[in-house]
């Protein structure tokens, strides 16, 4: 029987909740293929997480343990999972597409002389073949990708591609097997220090009901004020895509996206934002999305409820006036 293995993510002993999305994906693929779904957690003293995962509808949970797995390093994680997978072969190995997974999975797949299909947003089983959908060209196109090797095939899923709240619970807890892996001296070459936050976040965008967000289309730092005026008129917060914060035009704590904040306001008004994947993952849960962009093919329009194709510098000034009028 072919096996699908979901490797859940833990950081410093805490389960990353995005792992439930990956279990949901694994359950969906198992239902289509009839393959067995198993899960694994990798770390040091993470039996509690294995127990938590065993409550879900999975055939078995492995607790892959080594003292060298804490703190996280790509060397130890790739080594431990390689040893584990050589003993417990799987056809598919699924993980969330997090920064941690991006850090060690390409190494692990290469060590096993196989490949990782990364940042996948959907999966389907068609005519005996698994097809994985991933975005290409910054979301302007999507590709159906198949695996052409002998296995295992690693697949990493983009945040929000499957729903964590759809994960099925098991009828009874799944058995948990502890697998102790010895990570020899010399395997781990990096010495990670404590995780830290640069500065206290001054702005909590996650609490904002209205967000006006600017992207490259704003062109110059002095034009940020125009967006600020619109945000003020609407009573909302000002945010930005990564390049704007990289340029120092707005502080980093106003950044929305995978490396910034994840927001879900009532209104997300995107000005001159093309909609690169890294930005979209941070705001696609917004209740309504309005996008103004001069490029009619900008990927932001794929997820917008209301779209305006045009020059933001023509549209925003009258928009500010209309908003002020409407608010009286």
């Amino acid at each position, binding site marked *: 029987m072919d096996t699908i293995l979901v490797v859940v993510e833990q950081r410093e002993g805490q389960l990353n909740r995005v792992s439930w999305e990956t279990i949901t994906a694994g359950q969906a693929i198992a239902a289509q293929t009839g393959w067995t779904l198993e899960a694994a957690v990798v770390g040091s003293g993470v039996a509690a997480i294995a127990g938590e995962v065993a409550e879900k509808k999975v055939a078995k949970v492995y607790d892959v343990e080594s003292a060298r797995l804490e703190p996280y390093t790509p060397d130890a994680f*790739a080594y431990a999972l390689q040893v584990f997978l050589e003993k417990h072969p799987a056809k598919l190995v699924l993980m969330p597409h997090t*920064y941690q997974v*991006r*850090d060690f*999975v*390409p*190494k692990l797949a*290469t060590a096993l002389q196989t*490949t*990782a299909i*990364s*940042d996948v947003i959907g999966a389907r089983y068609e005519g005996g073949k698994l*097809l994985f959908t991933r975005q290409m*060209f*910054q*979301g*302007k*196109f*999507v*590709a*159906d*990708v*198949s*695996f*052409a*090797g002998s296995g295992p095939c690693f697949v990493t899923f983009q945040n929000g591609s499957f729903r964590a709240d759809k994960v099925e619970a098991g009828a009874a807890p799944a058995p948990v097997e502890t697998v102790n892996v010895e990570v020899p001296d010399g395997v781990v070459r990096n*010495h*990670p*220090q404590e*995780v*830290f*936050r640069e500065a206290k*976040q001054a702005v909590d965008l996650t609490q904002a*009901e209205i967000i006006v967000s600017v992207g*490259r289309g704003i062109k110059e730092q002095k034009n940020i004020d125009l967006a600020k005026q619109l945000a003020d008129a*609407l009573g909302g917060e000002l945010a930005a895509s*990564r*390049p704007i914060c990289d340029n120092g035009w707005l502080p980093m704590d106003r950044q929305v996206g995978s*490396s*910034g*904040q994840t927001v879900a306001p009532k209104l997300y008004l995107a000005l001159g934002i093309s909609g*690169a*994947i890294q930005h979209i993952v941070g705001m696609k849960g917004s209740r*309504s999305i*309005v996008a103004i962009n001069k490029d009619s*093919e900008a990927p932001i329009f794929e997820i*917008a*409820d*209301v*779209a*305006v194709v*045009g020059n933001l510098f023509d*549209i925003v*000034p*009258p*928009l500010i006036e*209309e*908003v002020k*009028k*409407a608010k009286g």
Partner: protein
Amino acid sequence: MKILVCLKQVPQKDAPLKLNDAGTWIREDVSYEVNEPDAFALEEALRQKEKHSGEVVVVTAGPARAMQVLREALAKGADRAIHLEDDAFVGLDAYNTARAIAAAIKDEKFDLIFTGLQSDDCGYAQTGVILAQILGLPHATIIMHIEKNAGGIRVKRELEAGFFQFVDMPLPAVLTIQSGINKLRYATLIGIKQAKTKPMRKVTLGEVQSAIGANLQKIEKLYAPQKSKHTEFLEGPPAEVAKKLVEKLKNELRVI
């Protein structure tokens, strides 16, 4: 410090893209530019060289057109370039691309190898890490700062949601560089002039063929995303569009 920077040429950000007839790739008659994070990787290499002296070598795998990104890098201050030149390099998966680059540099010893953290076209976010594994080197990803110290280097990794982490690691090493790590420079006129005389080594597909294999992942079909959402497009002169939009915000979206 001897530093290798891997550069990729990708379609320009706002270039309108069309699918090829087979629906497996884009039509290649578009404008190209250097992948943005790779530009930051090059800048970081030049800054490290200015601090510690040494050499900056740039490499790309792509058709004849990809030489442009090498020329620009030489004009900005890179010392020499390696061009794995063949149309076939465009279609390689990340594993094969890394294997081809590893084969092309097998006779060299670099202290550091930089790549951008991912490419704007394929977005695999893997080539640098795979290259590290093939070369047997330690790596760190999504790097925002690099400092040389007694034992090697201390790098600042970007984590999600505004978190960071310093990592100490030995040299040689492979780093994938995040956009925004530094401020990009422009090429000077004198730099552009000097670039023409700098060494450019060409590597043919044949020279690295034995190092690569069949792609392990295959793009079966490339297509425009199917919309899951109904999008209403507002049209008309700006004043009219502004009016329509505010009506929507007030009556339908109820945010005013």
